[in-house]
């Protein structure tokens, strides 16, 4: 069985999704989904273990060797991401049943879990595969399920947000398809490793240039890099709370993975950074994204919207780290991928708890919540501290490496701007803290109880992880560092 881990990683949630339709009872389906997600997590941990000890794993699907067949190639980068995705998925599911009771009609619960598993399958499939067309197929699986999941939100704006995401997402995916077609035309292959070998001879052609441009734009749409981020705030704000947690922690990370994988492993780094002025472009767009999004966040009245804009800003940080073009910069990005999943996961989950008890996430409903839901609000405070980058939280670790990378490269202004961005984060986090702790609950409002255990358990798991990995950075830094080094060192 151990040799089949790469494919099991994707097949388990996939077949589980189909099986859910056969089991009909919602609670049963929830427990089944939770256990299947847990199994997926164990598989990813085992995979990471295997890759660390024995190096890149190659798995030929159908027994046909690449490039005639499709192969899965698991190296440090994918294994790391597979772990993050499956871990977040499992933690989030603990609170899922309780959360959707209030937000999704009962007759749709089973369908919800099926879509959730399909979304998980899609994301794992994108990360694990070594074939570019396979990426497209699983990208569509994860996108379609995401559109449907978002549309399940109570507010009618969820439908509109889902539609806009569908239009933008499909254009992005079609751009990627065009790029794959152009690349195939020039090289005759769809396998990533094979492409890496064959691209250099045609790299100077205009066709490959056009293909690269389309690819980058397509990926940036999925990534929500400024100015292609327009779909994200509404999609995160109006989706059911659990969907927001899951997507915020995983979906854009997968796009970051694709960016790194394509620019490092398929097209090599010198090509990627010199053909298009990618470094300059990304640094500028990343920084603008950080500032524009953080400032917009400050003015939001809906707390989910606030944190959604904050996510756009965090993606800006990841892109800046990537654009520095050094191993340290990439490591900072990879660390931030992990840390952002933890931070935003905890924050949105806590918001989900607020939604469950209070029924709304408008800032004016947060009065006095610090006293009424102390544990949940404390989680928001710690998550907020992590966003700002206070030492002892994971947020600090990635910001540290980011600034370090910028300084190593001599990019002083960038380092300063990153620090300024953190100051902006203080402003929007403070807004929430102020309302929750320093304002009295409205006279005549119904007091709310603390969130149920189903929420508190995963929230505090994530918060604890936030602090633990902020203090003991050895595991994350070594894996991220090794992954980064291997990408710079040569082809996988």
């Amino acid at each position, binding site marked *: 069985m151990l040799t089949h881990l790469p494919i099991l990683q994707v097949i388990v949630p996939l077949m589980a999704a189909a099986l859910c339709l056969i089991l009909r009872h919602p609670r049963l389906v929830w427990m089944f989904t939770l256990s299947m997600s847990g199994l997926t997590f164990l598989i990813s941990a085992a995979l990471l273990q295997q890759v660390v000890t024995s190096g890149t794993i190659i798995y030929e699907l159908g027994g046909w060797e690449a490039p005639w067949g499709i192969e899965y190639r698991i190296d440090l980068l994918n294994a790391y991401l597979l772990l993050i995705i499956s871990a977040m998925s499992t933690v989030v599911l603990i609170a899922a049943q309780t959360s959707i009771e209030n937000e999704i009609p009962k007759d749709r619960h089973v369908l919800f879990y099926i879509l959730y598993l399909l979304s998980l399958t899609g994301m794992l499939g994108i990360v694990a595969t070594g074939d570019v067309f396979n990426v497209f197929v699983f990208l*569509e699986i994860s996108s379609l399920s995401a559109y449907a999941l978002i*549309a399940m939100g109570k507010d009618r704006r969820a439908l509109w947000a889902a*539609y806009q995401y569908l239009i933008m997402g*499909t254009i992005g995916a079609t751009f990627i398809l065009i790029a794959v077609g152009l690349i*195939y035309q020039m090289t005759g292959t*769809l396998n990533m490793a094979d492409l890496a070998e064959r691209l250099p001879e045609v790299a100077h052609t205009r066709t490959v240039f056009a293909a690269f441009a389309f690819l980058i734009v397509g990926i940036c749409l999925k990534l929500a890099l400024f100015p292609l981020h327009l779909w994200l705030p509404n999609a995160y704000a109006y989706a059911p709370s659990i969907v927001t947690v899951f997507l915020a922690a995983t979906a854009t990370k997968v796009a970051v993975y694709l960016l790194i994988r394509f620019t490092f492993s398929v097209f090599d780094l010198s090509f990627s950074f010199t053909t298009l002025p990618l470094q300059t472009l990304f640094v500028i767009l990343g920084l603008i994204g950080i500032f524009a999004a953080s400032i917009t966040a400050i003015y939001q009245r809906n707390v989910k919207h606030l944190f959604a804009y904050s996510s756009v800003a965090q993606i800006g940080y990841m892109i800046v780290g990537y654009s520095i073009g050094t191993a340290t910069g990439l490591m900072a990005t990879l660390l931030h991928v992990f840390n952002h999943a933890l931070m935003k996961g905890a924050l949105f989950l806590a918001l989900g708890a607020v939604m469950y008890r209070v029924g709304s996430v408008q800032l004016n409903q947060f009065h006095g919540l610090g006293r009424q839901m102390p544990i949940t609000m404390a989680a928001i405070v710690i998550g907020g501290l992590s966003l700002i980058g206070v030492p002892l939280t994971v947020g600090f670790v990635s910001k540290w490496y980011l600034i370090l990378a910028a300084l190593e490269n001599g990019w002083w202004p960038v380092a300063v701007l990153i620090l300024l961005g953190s100051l902006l984060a203080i402003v929007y986090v403070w807004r929430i803290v102020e309302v929750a702790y320093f304002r009295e609950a409205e006279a005549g409002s119904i007091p709310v109880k603390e969130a149920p255990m189903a929420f508190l358990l995963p929230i505090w798991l994530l918060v604890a992880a936030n602090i633990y990995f902020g203090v003991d950075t050895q595991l994350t830094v070594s894996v991220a560092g090794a992954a980064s080094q291997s990408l710079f060192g040569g082809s996988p």
Partner: protein
Amino acid sequence: MMMMIGLYNYWVVMVLMMIGLYIVIAHGNLIKKIVGLNIFQTSVFIFYISLAKVEGGTAPILAEGINLYSNPLPHVLILTAIVVGISTTALGLALVVRIKEAYGTMEEEDIQKKDNQEC
């Protein structure tokens, strides 16, 4: 000149793609956007299939006496892409139906007006 003759097939397809893309971006009617999306996607399919053509070859089904075949790989990819396309269209249209029920309109501007009133 040779180049133009050799490439004009692709250019025609690209014009089609741009028409589709234009419809998606410029029109405010939700259904028209989906139609535009469809046209955009289908022209990408035509592009792939034109990649596959080999001068003098026939359909890639093995038969007696035929030696030159067109490339089967893009055909496979497009079969998949067609299915993906119809899935997206179906989901998009389902969303349009729900939006019409919820908002009473299918024009982007009207929807945004209604949303702004709420906030």
